[in-house]
């Protein structure tokens, strides 16, 4: 059972590695999966959970969400291993923030500002989706926990996003941390 109250908190120390490559060409996919130690999600808008959380962003783009301390090493490992492939690896940790929203009212909160369908039968555990929330572009991740979602937000929008969440959540049972 989840808490009755919905929590909003900004998570610290999260790393984000952006990975681009064509999974259908060369050894890219095999090398990436070997270094990551888990599959690359090929189905759009899905997440692969393992040592890291790998989110599908596009047919040739993924976001590897991991502990901030591991990002540097992972970046190097991927860059080195993929040196012979057409691929791009960037550490975007400095530019992204994660807002964790958990609890029963999370989906109602998202519906205030996002046109995605967050019905539990539609946005299921293991889903992710890039979309507009209010006037910012974000990445929604269903973390797998009951009603636990991570919002990946560009850092310059973080202040606005939190402000908007507070406003939109004013009628809901939400606590901010």
């Amino acid at each position, binding site marked *: 059972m989840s808490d009755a109250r919905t929590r909003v908190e900004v998570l610290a120390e999260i790393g984000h590695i*952006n990975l*681009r*490559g064509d999974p259908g060409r060369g050894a890219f996919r095999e090398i990436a999966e070997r270094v990551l130690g888990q599959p690359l999600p090929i189905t759009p808008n899905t997440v692969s959970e393992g040592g890291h959380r790998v989110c599908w962003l596009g047919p*040739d783009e993924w976001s590897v969400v991991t502990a901030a301390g591991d990002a540097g090493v992972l970046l190097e490992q991927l860059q080195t291993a993929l040196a012979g492939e*057409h*691929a*791009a690896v*960037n*550490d*975007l*940790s*400095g*530019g*992204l923030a994660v807002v964790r929203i958990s609890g029963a009212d999370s989906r109602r909160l998202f*519906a*205030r*500002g*996002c*046109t*995605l*369908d967050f*019905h539990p039968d*539609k946005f299921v555990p293991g889903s992710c989706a890039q979309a507009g929330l*209010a*006037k*910012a572009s974000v990445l929604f991740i269903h973390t797998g926990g009951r009603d636990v979602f991570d919002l990946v937000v*560009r*850092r*310059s*929008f973080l*202040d*606005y996003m939190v*402000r*908007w969440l507070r*406003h*939109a959540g*004013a*009628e809901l049972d939400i606590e901010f941390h």
Partner: protein
Amino acid sequence: MQINRLSQGGRIDRSKPLGFRFNGKRYQGFAGDTLASALLANGVLLVSRSFKLHRPRGIVAAGSDEPNAIVQVGSGASTIPNLRATEVELYDGLKARSTKGWPGLRFDIAALNDRFSPLLGAGFYYKTFMRPKAFWKHYERFIRASAGFGAAPQRTDPDRYEHCNAHCDVLVAGAGPAGLMAALVAARSGARVIVADEQNEFGGALLSASATIDGQPAPDWVATVVAELSGYEDVTVLPRSTVFGYHDHNFLTLAERCTDHIGERVQGVRQRLWRVRAKQVVLAQGAFERPLVFCNNDRPGVMTASAVSTYIRRYAVCPGKRAVVFTNNDSAYETALDLRASGATVIVIDSRSGGAGALGAAVRKEGITVLAAHVVTDVTGRRKVAGVRVAQWSGDVTARVENTIRIDCDLLAVSGGWSPAVHLHSHSGGKNVWEESLHCFVPGETAQACVSAGSGNGKWALDACLRDGRDAGAAVASRCGFEAAEVPLPSASDTAVNEMQPLWRVPAVKDPDRCPKQFVDYQNDTSVADIRLAVREGYRNVEHVKRYTALGFGTDQGKLGNINGMAILAECLDEDIKDVGTTTFRPAYTPVTFGVGAGENVGELLDPVRKTAIHEWHEQHGAPFEVVGQWHRPWYFPRGDEDLHAAVARECLATRNSVGIMDASTLGKIDAQGPDVVEFLERIYTHNVGKMKVGRCAYGIMLGEDGMVMDDGVMARLAENRFYLTTTTGGAAPVLAWLETWLQTEWPELEVYLTSLTETYSTIAVAGPNSRRVLQNAGCSIDLERESFPFMSVRSANLAGIPVQLFRVSFSGELAFEVNIDSRYAEQMWRLLMQAGQEFDITPYGTETMHVLRAEKGFVIVGQDTDGSVTPVDLGMNWMLSKDKDYLGKRSLARKDCLREDRKQLVGLLSEDGKTVLPEGTQLVDDTGAPIPVPMCGHVTSSYFSACLGHPIALALVAGGRARRDETTFAAMQDGTRVPVRIVSSVFYDAKGERQNV
């Protein structure tokens, strides 16, 4: 005194009296009342003045079709204008007033318009106020003052509004018998359902029906169904919610009124906009009763029959004691029975020779007189109905009739038959078709995934509505992929088919153009004579007639009058109604507030505020912010009580003489890599990218295919196949999208990946002769001297142990470095550099100083000195244009128009008086004596006072400007004066570029 209140019945709570004010006078009603029912209970008949003729008007209807009782509710900033009193739920302390009538309702000066009404026919405004043209400015004030309805609030709305997105399998619009059945079937089938109704309670017409369903009173059946629906997790029940728009791809908008029924300034969200995407839609909005068209049919006390029944049965208000019911169909006989049951005397005038069938017998059994084959031709009384004149009628519309009877009465209930509410069907793109057997337009072929049901689909009898709703629910459920639940049809007591005789206008005793007005559209004062006049003047298309006569405009959008109007038009044109057709109904179904449209997108949430990683430091140091796109950038850093000019002068001098520091983090940054990256960038940028050595930077510009400058920035070659591109602040997102567009759509064979780094890295510019020493002080890990780190190159380094990318580039013309650093450490780095620069009095500067410094050097800002019509040649950047390759926009530069010598070109301007700072945007003229319109030869794009030079400088685009060096032209100032200015080079400072290259 609630003189018209019945002692029992109705859905009001007599134990909860509510006080309210209307036009300043105190009244009392009960919980459950609308403002309209409470006014009628108090015997208030006169509620407004009409739009054009200012005739006294009363309440006509009981729902959203009300054309007359338009009121302003509340006061001050939270007031709402133009509400229908029939839809305003009463609360204690409610204040409302009429939106028409000055100085007062009973004595309205503009009512003189009515006396002169023969002059105020259709097209009056067009004909009168267009000539003479010069007089329009006088007319306009008068027309504006007398036009419109309520008054908009003058202050900021204090209430909360919000938006909410929703998805469902089935949206049901309207919760009357058909809508409820459809929702029930869909819900039992397992569908996600949203069911919305504009009224405070579900049930629609059932709330005031005498019929029984499954042997119980209709409202009890409604309560059972609503209870079941509310129990489903995936069913959303929305009362007080108007589906006001049916847009493309089954997207519908609903306005939910959350607190308006409680009072003003209530805690919480006042109204909510639902943006619903539905797989299937059931339109069950019901039908509107049509009035009948006869002389003076607008007198207070003339109401639709169904409205009278609603007031009696739902609100326990009988609006008259001596009633006449005038009808051309069966349904009004129910009203006669309701009136009799309420103690009123009733006479029924039926235009049909045979009268009504079973209902007729029931009415006669009650001892009610029925005059068949008679019509009401005229109404006596001015501020309220005093009586009616009645004539015998054979059924021939063209026949002249003679009044034979006069009946005194205080209430006239009329019924001209029913029109399905086809509005949403019309919004959705569906056509409406004339159904000859029903004498109304019904929803025709659908354009989207929807079904109409119930009386909105031309089904009049209750059992037919229930069946139609059930079938619609089953159809949409199965279309959504559910197995439709078997729901038994409830048995309804009302199974009668409503028989009607078409009667679009009652024949008058006089010529229809000379008789007292026969109103078709109450709200717009459109009469039969107006439609006839429009046809005589040559209007034939229904949409043109609508615009000429105003038929169907206003807050009610023709809900009552349109069909009568179309039929009368058809008669005038001697055409069939089906050929004349209807006007197109468009959103909104009923007016919605600006507040619900805006939602939370007001104030600080109107536009996102983007902040750099160093924002907090800037705030702490008192910087005002300049909004650039959505970014808030520090504008300048005042010391003490410095103003903008003093601060900028100090910041400029400090930077030129020692060292300044600026947050340039908002620049767009893109990582571009891949085996084909050089080839790709060659096609994008105008210069020779391939000639760049690893570790070097270059200034690059990109053009649109039209040859105009689109964006610029410094690019660095980090490795053989890897570049770091920068864009302008505003260009960050569009440039990335532009590059991706070419890669994905035109050149998919090129192996290049692009990744935005705008947010990842922050950029700190350190500029000025002491900048190198500041970096050295900060513990820079690499040699910063010119020989090993020349101008326009890039190095990876550590500053105070933190890894950075150092760019030796300059936007000020001084020796300068740009420190690119992971945004998480940017503020720390900023503080370190401030510390390291202390001995040089390092001076933080903002966007204004940056602008001055770059303008002194003649560096352009794309979007300020360019405007989408400027080529690189216009900017004097021919040296940037490679002749050895093709690039986007190159071909356009060879178009004839781009080769004109009199194109506007970038130049510098100096005010000849040495002190006037020209406002940016100032137009330039050569001939100060030229007559208006004065030919312009250019305009000022950038203008500042240069503290370093001690005089103002400006950049301008001047026609053929480069060939006009040292000529004088004139700046046309706003006050009409002309300031002489000299055309000079656009580079004002260090023309040889020596200072940045040390």
